[in-house]
């Protein structure tokens, strides 16, 4: 093998290197095994929807990937952070790295209720990354503009609508400049008529930012509008992996039809 050749190979590998690798992930709650050896790769820039019926393991997978739950077997890599089985307290370093690589928007957002929208956004940059308040505020204003909340920068969460709180939570996560943004059930706490706005915002973000999105949802329609890849988790296994249109049009696994309600 020539040195020329291996250099080319290395460059190709760098371009295609997945930003997330999940390998044979096993997660149990007591006797109940929720994830039964789940594996998948996600390449940078992808918008991936994790779908499936409740109890299928999609939320658990998300909590493992975001370092909120320990797991028993397998491995997870997000960017440069490598998570291994065992209690969370035993690998603080990798978890700290994970926090800088990824952000999470919770299902019910969990904004800090004693801080304004702007304060919520600058909190982590100032106290975790030690960015100056001045710089953090300027960056936060750009983000608020981007999510359409400029007029609400001084508002407290309890005075904001659900949609506004969600957009603020997205801005809060983005302020840490993550490579990957995880979102947990973003449509579940929204009015149906607000879902369109969310899709619009996320489309705008996927176009303008060099971000990878992993979105947990139980709504296939939402996944179809936004994602360029869908993983269906069913009883702890990945049973479908493909473009949402393809999964909808020709599911490989009969159980997918059941979940999608196509048998009715």
């Amino acid at each position, binding site marked *: 093998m020539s040195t020329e050749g291996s250099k080319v190979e290395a460059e190709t590998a760098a371009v295609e290197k997945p930003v997330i690798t999940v390998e044979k992930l096993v997660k149990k709650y007591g006797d109940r095994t929720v994830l039964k050896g789940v594996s998948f790769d996600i390449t940078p820039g992808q918008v991936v929807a994790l779908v499936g019926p409740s109890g299928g393991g999609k939320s658990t997978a998300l909590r493992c990937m*975001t*370092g*909120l739950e320990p797991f028993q077997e397998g491995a997870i890599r997000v960017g440069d952070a490598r998570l291994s089985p065992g209690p969370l307290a035993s690998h603080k370093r990798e978890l*700290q790295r994970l*926090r*800088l690589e990824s*952000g*999470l928007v*919770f299902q*019910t957002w*969990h*904004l*800090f*209720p*004693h801080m304004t929208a702007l304060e919520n956004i600058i*909190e*982590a940059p100032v*106290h*975790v*990354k030690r960015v100056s308040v001045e710089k953090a505020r300027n960056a936060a204003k750009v983000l608020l503009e981007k999510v359409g909340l400029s007029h609400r920068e001084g508002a407290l969460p*309890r005075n904001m609508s659900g949609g506004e709180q969600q957009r603020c939570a997205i801005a*809060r*996560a983005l302020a*840490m400049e993550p490579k990957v943004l995880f979102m947990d059930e973003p449509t579940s706490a929204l009015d149906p008529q607000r879902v369109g706005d969310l899709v619009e915002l996320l489309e705008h973000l996927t176009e303008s930012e060099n971000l990878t999105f992993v979105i947990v949802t139980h709504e296939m329609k939402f996944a179809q509008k936004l994602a360029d890849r869908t993983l269906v988790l069913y009883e702890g296994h990945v049973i479908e992996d493909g473009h949402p249109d393809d999964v909808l049009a020709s599911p490989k696994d009969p159980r997918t039809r059941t979940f999608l309600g196509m048998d009715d």
Partner: protein
Amino acid sequence: MSRERLGRGSGLVLLAVLAGAVVSCGGEHEGALERVRRTGVLRWGGDVQGGEPYVFEDPSQPGRLIGFEVEVADAVAREMGVRAEFVQNDWSNLVPSLDRGSFDIAMNGLEVTPARADTVVFTRPYFVFSAQLVTRRNDETATSLDALEGHRVGTLASSLSWEILRERPVEVVAYEGTEEPYADLRGGRIDGVLLDDIIATRYGLVHSDLHLVEDVADGYYAVACRQHEEALCAEVDRALAALAERGELRRILARWEIDNDRQARLASWSEEDTRAMLLVRQHASFTAHHVLLFVQGAAVTLVVSSLAMILAVALGLLLALSRMYGPRPLSVAATTYVELFRGTPVLLQLHVLYFGIMPVLRASLSWDAGTEYDAFFAAIVGLGLNYAAYEAEIYRAGIQAIPPGQMEAATVLGMSTSLALRRVIVPQAFRIALPGVTNDFIALLKDSSLVSVITVVELTKRMTITAIDVRSYLLPGLLCAGLYLALSYPLSLLSRRLEERLARESS
């Protein structure tokens, strides 16, 4: 005589006085003397906790009462042709209980003081005591009460010695127990103790580093009867006179090793002497000066409470966080602290801190920071340490009320546990805890009256002292209550406002 009390009597005294007033307004009663003659029983009130040599339980025969007063009572009853019957009553409430009619006479080291002479009828004395000044043997300057000008001198509140000291240019330190003043004298917190010779002999002069330097004044233990019961009083007085004349009284005193030259006066006691003994000085009336003293007392209450609360709030937070987030040994230690301080009386904690721990600390660290601030310091630290346990629980409840999602949101943003606590959890928990903390501050304002057991004169103590001075609990009591209300009502309003705000925010 007085004694260590682990409870506060002043409220009871006030109630008892009011109740007594109501009862005595009733119709015609059978006189006490007629009742004694009819039943053949002379009921006399005392407190067995006063100990040797007054009235106490025979250590070799529990249940049997002995003491020189038991013998005097028996002899007096015999003289009257009746039988003596002892009625146990808390010492600090002897006079109110006498007023209420719980017994016919009170006889338990009651000193004849101007204040008491106004509320009961006294017989001739059955014992002449001396108010004795005891100082440290190695303190060469402390040779007399005059030499102690400007110094701190301890005594029991409302005793004859207390009345004597208040007329002198010394700083009077009021104790509620008999051991403590001598302990503080030995430890250097005060430079002299003025108390009855019986107390001085038993509690002070047993220590070889203390010595008697001066007999300051004579005083008298006499039998107290209810006002307007002059007939019974005269009978008891006659009986005492007969016992003294026959030498029987001194024989009783001799058996208890408290006879001395002073008692010679008992045999030749005349009615003239009784009048002189009862010669009541112009007693104080409630004046603007008292109001000023009350305001000072309120200031002490406010300062002690505020500083103690600051300590409690800070330490309580530390305890709550240690208990919930600390490593196991720290968490166990914090839990133990909370249970220990909530599970034992704050009065006991104050005692142990001031009379137990601080003297040891002072000795072992040779720490010598102004002894006159010892009590103040102990009051703040003692109340602060106690309330910290309660504040810790309020914070813990506050922290538990924060949804777990808040900690997760902070964690996902890269915050460490301590940063998340500081920036996210504690500020929210504090808002939830604030109404409870404010309520506790109101409770602390009132609990701070307990620090009078370690010689701090705060509002309630000031009230008790003044009430005895002016012979009435009414005005001092009302003023005291008014000042407490003035301190706590704004806090009540604040607490209500905070609760309303909290309800609004969480809706």
